Every structure is written in C-alpha cells, then in structure tokens.
C-alpha cells in the first residue's frame, strides 16, 4: 500500500503539483505509508529536480510526446492502472480544471470515493478532507470511510515543504496502449499573463474618460502593480479602443472583485449592472458630478493621468511622506 500524488504539468510542472506532493507526504507520514507520485507528459527534462526533498519514494514517469497534452482516455487509464498496481490507499490530485476532471474520471472508473476542491487533507485512521461549502461560508470536514480514497486539493493553499534533497527513484514508463476517443490537435493559449476578468480579485477599468487607446499602458501599469485584470466600459469598447472581451457591464462581463478601480468611467446604469457587486469600488473621474461617485466607496475627483501613476508608484515603492 502507498499514497499516490498526481503531479500536474502544462509543459512544465505546475506549482500545485508540488503543493499536492507536500500535502500527500503529510498524509503518508501519518498513515505510515510510502509516498509515490505519477508524472504524465512529454519528456520532463531536468524539471524533475524540483522534486528533490519532497519525500517521494518512487516517481512513475510516463513520458511520451503523445502524453504532452491531457486526454481523458490515456490519463485515466494510467492513473487507474497505477492505483490498482500500487494498491494505493489515498490518491491526491490538484483541484484544477484538469485535475478535477481526471480524478472524477478515475474515481468513477475504480468506483471509489472522491472529495473535490479540498483546502486541507490529513490522516486520522482514514483520509480526512476539509472543503468549503455554501460559497465558502462553511467548512465541511469529510471523513473518507473507504480505501482507496481520492481527493483534489485547491491550489495556493498548501505550503511546499522540503526536507533535504533526496530525489525519488524514477520509474520510466511510456504511453498506455489505449484507443483515444478524442485527439487534441492544437492548444490555443490566450495572451500570456492576462488575468481572467471574471475570476480576478482586482479589476482596473477604463472608460471614455481615458481619452484614447494610448492610455491603456497607464492603467496596465496599475494592473501589474496590484495584480489586477484590465476592464473597460462599453464606451471604450464601442470606440474600438479595446477588445470587447474586456467589457464590463450589462452586455459585457459581470464581475465582483474585492477591488474595482473605475478610471474615467461615468458609471452609466449599464456599467453598474456589471460591477455593482464589487466589494470596494474606487472611482477616478474629472467630473465631480459623474454618477459613478454615487456608487463608489472611495472617489477621487482628478485627472487620471496624475492619479493612476501616483497610485501605481505608491503600490510599487510604498508610501512616502
């Protein structure tokens, strides 16, 4: 028996793979079992050095060009066979779009229990998982009563812990001989570095008041400084200053970030409909009568060309004076 961690990769190992391994190691230690891991992808090259000190006994490295991209048929077959082979007591994956699908499919294939999107896992005579329910208002502790038990772990909640620099024993394996019902022809990536508007915790938006598309870099600098996504009002999109995919409003995206910074946006009803559930709204506008000041938490009446760079500087360099 052992504990199996699924190490997710997208060309390179994802940070959540290391988090999953760290969480799995604690479970393994408390359960008194060894930790094994599985990597599925193209030739990992020297990336596996990242696994040093994570306490993995054996890494089953399924490296093949055919495995570069995720296909349900191949990945499920690899993991399910490995779980049977190792007689794994616990299987941990990452609660990413890929990980959630893979683990759900494996659980179905093996007819075992799975808890998705956990924020913590531990061992207490069996696998224990903790997951938020009711939109995060309640944390549920779920005891998994059967083995093998499966869980996926939410990214960014588990610290990566290393102990020494021992490397796992690497067991090289190839692609399974299964027929694939789907074939991935090409993966088209959206612009690198862009943060998805609807998922962003912070959004900086520009409207007609920014004057023209040449102003976006000013707003983008603030976005980069605070890790925000760039939004736009309908007016800016209508003027063809930016792609419609950035539009926030009734006929664009509906966002509810923790922080919404509206720059040069008058705050017409159609815009309000897309951002009124934001937690904190900061409005920057030259026109003190703009309706946006009625709905904001903090309003700055001023020229955004002065205010926004100032904000960016304060964030990056810290307040002075």
């Amino acid at each position, binding site marked *: 028996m052992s504990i199996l961690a699924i190490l997710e990769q997208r060309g390179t190992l994802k940070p959540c793979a290391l988090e999953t391994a760290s969480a799995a190691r604690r479970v393994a230690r408390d359960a008194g079992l060894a930790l094994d891991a599985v990597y599925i992808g193209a030739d990992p090259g020297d990336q596996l050095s990242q696994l040093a000190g994570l306490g993995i006994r054996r890494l089953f490295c399924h490296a093949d060009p055919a495995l570069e991209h995720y296909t349900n048929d191949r990945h499920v077959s690899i993991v399910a066979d490995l779980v049977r082979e190792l007689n794994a007591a616990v299987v941990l994956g990452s609660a990413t779009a890929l990980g959630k699908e893979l683990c759900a499919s494996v659980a179905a294939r093996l007819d075992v229990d799975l808890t998705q999107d956990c924020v913590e896992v531990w061992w207490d005579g069996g696998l224990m998982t903790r997951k938020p329910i009711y939109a995060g208002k309640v944390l549920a502790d779920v005891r998994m009563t059967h083995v093998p038990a499966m869980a996926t772990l939410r990214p960014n909640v588990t610290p990566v812990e290393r102990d020494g620099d021992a490397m796992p024993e690497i067991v090289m394996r190839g692609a399974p001989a299964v027929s694939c019902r789907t074939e991935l022809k090409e993966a088209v990536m959206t612009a690198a570095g862009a943060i998805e508007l609807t998922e962003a915790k912070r959004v900086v938006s520009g409207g007609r008041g920014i004057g023209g598309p040449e102003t976006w870099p000013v707003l983008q600098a603030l976005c980069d400084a605070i890790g925000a996504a760039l939004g736009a009002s309908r*007016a800016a999109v*209508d003027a063809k200053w930016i792609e419609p995919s950035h539009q926030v409003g*009734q*006929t664009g995206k509906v966002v509810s970030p923790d922080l919404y910074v509206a720059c040069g946006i008058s*705050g*017409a*009803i159609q815009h*309000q*409909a897309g951002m009124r559930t934001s937690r904190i709204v900061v409005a920057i506008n030259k026109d003190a009568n703009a*309706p946006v000041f009625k709905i904001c938490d903090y309003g700055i009446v001023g020229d955004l060309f002065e205010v926004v760079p100032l904000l960016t500087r304060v964030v990056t360099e810290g307040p002075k004076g």
Partner: protein
Amino acid sequence: MLTLPEKVVFAVIVAVSLGYFTYRAFVLVRLIRRAGKPDPEDRLHDLGARMTGAAIDVLLQRRTFRKPWIGSLHLLIVWGFFVFAVNTINHFAGAFLPGFNLFGQTFLANIYAATADLFAVLIIAGIAGLAFRRHVLRPDLLTRPSPESAIVFTFIAGAMAAYLCAKATEMALGKLPNAEWHFVASWLARGFAAVGPGPLVVAAHVAWWCDGLMHLALIGLLVIPTKHVHLVAGPFNLLFRRFRPRGQMTTLNLEDENAESFGVSRMAEYSWKQLLDLYACIECGRCQEFCPTHVSKKPLSPKKLVVDLKHHLLSNASPLLRGDETGALVGGPIAADAVWACTTCAACMEHCPMAIEHIDKITDMRRHLVLMESDFPETAATAFRNMETAGNPWGFARNDRAAWADGLEVPVMAEKGGADVLYWVGCSGSYDDRCKNISKAMVRILKAAGVDFAMLGEEERCTCESARRLGNEYLFQMAAREIAETLNTYAFKRILVTCPHCYNTFKNEFPAFGAAYEVVHHAAFIQEMIESGRLNLETNGGPLVAFHDSCYLGRHNGLYDAPRRVLASAGQKMAPVARDREKGFCCGAGGGRMWLEEHLGEPINVLRFNELTAGGADCIAAACPFCITMLSDAAKREGQDTEVLDLAEIVARQLSL
C-alpha cells in the same frame, strides 16, 4: 382573321397553357393551405371593412401613393390591367369568332376601343417610367439587376405594343369596325398601309400572334410564379390584413400539452397568412428604406428576409406539399445575425404597400430559438435572468426600486389603496440615474397639475416587454400575470407611463392577461393637463429642439401629435428633422436590442443622432427612456454636448411657479 391551321394551333396552345396555369395556381394555393398553420388572428371578421379597405388600396392605390410619382405610374398600370382583362377575352374569343367584342356593336364598344388605346400608351409610359427609375435613377430600394423585373417589364410593354400593332394592321386591312375610335392604332395604321397588301397580311398575322402569346405569357408569369404574382396575392393579402394592433404580439399557449414546439424553426410552422405575405411581396424595397438595420448596414433587410423566405417556400414546395420536414430557417436561408438584428421598429410594416407582417416572422423565429433551443445572444441571458429574479433588467435590488423618490413625498398605492392615476415609473425611471430625472420631473408636473396619483413602489416590476420581443414568451407571461394580480388589488382610473414600451404593453398586450386598464402616455397626459388649463407653462422658448419619434409611441400606437403639441405649448422652437413621424428612424434599442451589443454595421444611435442635429438643433427631445439613453450615448460618442431631454424634463423646466 386566322386560317384554320392557325386556329387549331392557337386552340391547342391556349388549352395546354391554361391547363398548366390552372394546375400551377392550384399548387400555389394548396402550398399555403397545406404548409401554413391556422393563423392566431381571425382574418375574416369585419369582412365589410376588410373588403372596402382592400378595394380602396387596390383601385386607388392608397398605399403606393405614399410615393406619389411611383404611385401614379403604378396606378396607370393597375387600371390598364383591368382594361386589358377585357381585351384579352376579346382577343382570344376573336380567334374563333371573328369580330367578337364583349360590348358587341354598341357605343360602349367604341368607348372601350378608345380607352384601351389610351391605356396601352399609358401602360407603356408607366412601364418606361418605372424602368427609368430602376435602371437610371437606381434607388437603393430596388434590386439590380433583376431578371424578373426585366421579364415582367418586357412582357407588359410588349403586350401593349403588340396590341396596338394588331389593331393597326387589322385596321390597315380594313377589317376593324370602329376604326376611328382606335385613335392610337389608327395613327400607326397609316404607317402599316404603306407596306403594301402582301406584307401587310403577314404583319397582321404576326402582330395578332404576338398579342395573343404576350397576354398568355403574362398570365403565366403570375403562376410560375414571378413577383408578378403580387397582382393576385396582393389584393387577398390586403383583404386578410392584420386588424389587431401593430404593437400586439400573438400570445402563445405555453400550457398546451399537445404543443411539440413553440415559435417557428421551419417553413411549415408559419401560419397561412405569413406564407401568403411571401407571395404578395413585390420587392419594392419600401420596407428597408427606413429600416435601421438595413440603413446601418447590418445583415437584416426586411425585403431580403421576405424574398429569401419566398424562395425557400417555393423551392421546398414538393416536400411541403407531401407534409415532409424541410430544413431549419435560421442558419439556412436566414442568418441568425439577421434574426437578432431587428429592433421591431415597424418601419417595414408601416411602409409595405402589401401590408406584409415582417416583425412577426422575426419574433416567431426568436421564440423558437429562445424557448426550444435556448440559443440566444449571451448578453440577453443576463437581462432575462435579472428580469426574472430581480424584476428589472440590470439586477438591482427590488427594495431599492422606489429609492429615487426619497424625499419627494410620492404616494404609494400600498399605503393609499387607490388614486385617480397610477403612475407606473418603469425600470429606467426607477433605477437609471439619468432617467430618475424624468421620474422626478413627472412628479413635479403631477403635483403642479394637482393630480391625485400614487405609484406601486416596491410592488412594481419589469413588464418584460423586451424579453417578449427577444422571444422569451415564458418570462413575459409570468410578469404579465404577476403585474395583473398586483394591479387588480388597487382602485385607480388609469395608468400613466413615461415609457412607450410600457405603454404599448399595457395598451395592447396586458388586457389578454387580465389587466385591462386605460393607459396614457405622459405625452398625451401632459397635453391633456395643458389643454384643460391645469398646467401653466412659461413660453420663453429656449434652445432649438429636434423631436425624435419613438417607434412604440408613433408607428406602433399613432401618437405623433401629442408630444409636438406639448413642446409647442412649452414654447419650444422646433428644428426640422429629415425623417420623422411615420418615417421616423429608430434609436436602435427596440425589440430587446437595448440588452444586446451592436457589433455589426454602423451604430444606429449615432446615425440617428447626426440626423437629428443636422437641422441645427441644440437639444433633442424624446419621450422614451431607451431613446434617451441611446441618443445620449451617441452624443457622448460624437463628442457633442447636445442635450437629450425627455418631454417631462422640458415641461418641468417651463413650469410657471
């Protein structure tokens, strides 16, 4: 005149042709009877009025006369058609009974001879005028090149020329009894007389045959069919025209357990009247002249829609007659973008000489897409969800609905129980910062006029008019029932609205859901208050004002004068507007387009804004929150500071204190 072999050949040709034509006519009639479903409206009630109306439209060409020159030319051809119907009988019977005349040898026959000659010339003149328009003036309305028109033009003019030549040669041979009455043919006869007796006999036979065959061809063009079929289908389409209000959509019975489908996805789901519309189309293009989507270069033209549907109907005649399923319309002959582009402004229906009902064809397709396929623009989903859960399109909280009236002491029905006037504020007036000013102005006016009024406050909700026009009949009916239930608990005499969309819904659509109340739009209400002396306005003038006709006030409900009289009473100087009243141009927000993005073609609101300000206006007046939003946006987009105001705001500004 004819030799025996000629008579035999002619008899065979006529018999075969008429047999075939009868068969084709039968197929065309059977196609709409078999493929068309029952129409939701009783198309025969009030038959007297229907017949009178159709007769006036056909004989006096009332509808084509909206363009007086075209109407005149067309009138010549229509009257000529009746004149020549008689001639066709004379000509065909004359093949076998030489000298046959329906009027015998009476004086009437002489009058007829002169009339026919006159109309032969007038028809040629009419055709020449229309051909000149199509090929030289080339208006955008007309399709070019149009082989069908060329064929129809050629055969009509050809038939007239052949008639005159036949009469002239007959006369030159001395065989025409009332020769002196054929004043045109007799003039031609002098020319024919010069060719000598031998060639003259040949010419007479050739002209006779041309005359006969051209007439036969004209009958054939009716049933093949070409667009020539409009001269039979048109009068019937006018007879069966819509009597229900233009702004009233049909009500779907959503509880019908036997219904397998709602709306229209395939040709056989249209009613027979919708199909008759297709035959009646003459492709004159008047429907697209004021159509906002066509003018702004979007993929919808009402003319193209009807013509494409007509071709689809005719090319699928066999499977439709067999009762087999035909292909889907949307994604087939009709582009999805065209279906969603319509603003339901009714410019097409207003100007169609054949009373074709374009909007229903489009909204029926939307109904199917929404109710059966759940296939509609993503942004409509947001509006639908908000209307359903929050009772307004933006998703604001229900209990904030009356917040605009804080401090204004506006009576609420729940506290008052009843009032003379129920003031229906509407979603824009309740939540949109811009339109809250209209509500506040209206309250000032109501108080100044001493009106006993109250609003519903938090009990009000969206009428879902735009959802209905986007095809979401389910959502609309739910809202209609809920509103009827609320209204029925209070006592009031009439409902006052500041939104033409709410107005149309209360006036034309809610009565079917148990809310039959008198409703008045604020334009008419303010006019009434002014004219009864309850409101006194300063008439010190102000900026030059261009009035924008809202489609659901004007074309849908005929309220053109009230807003203009209100502006006049308020001392406003009016700027000229190129397209107004019946020819008014939509702001782009009707038909639920308010909730959709406008990605294709030019922005309609900008086109309209520039048109309104072209006459030098400093201020645009409208009487609809959607129009005001669209035109204000356009002003900002064009970088203009032109004021866009509601009638109520202008009136409130002019209130004498």
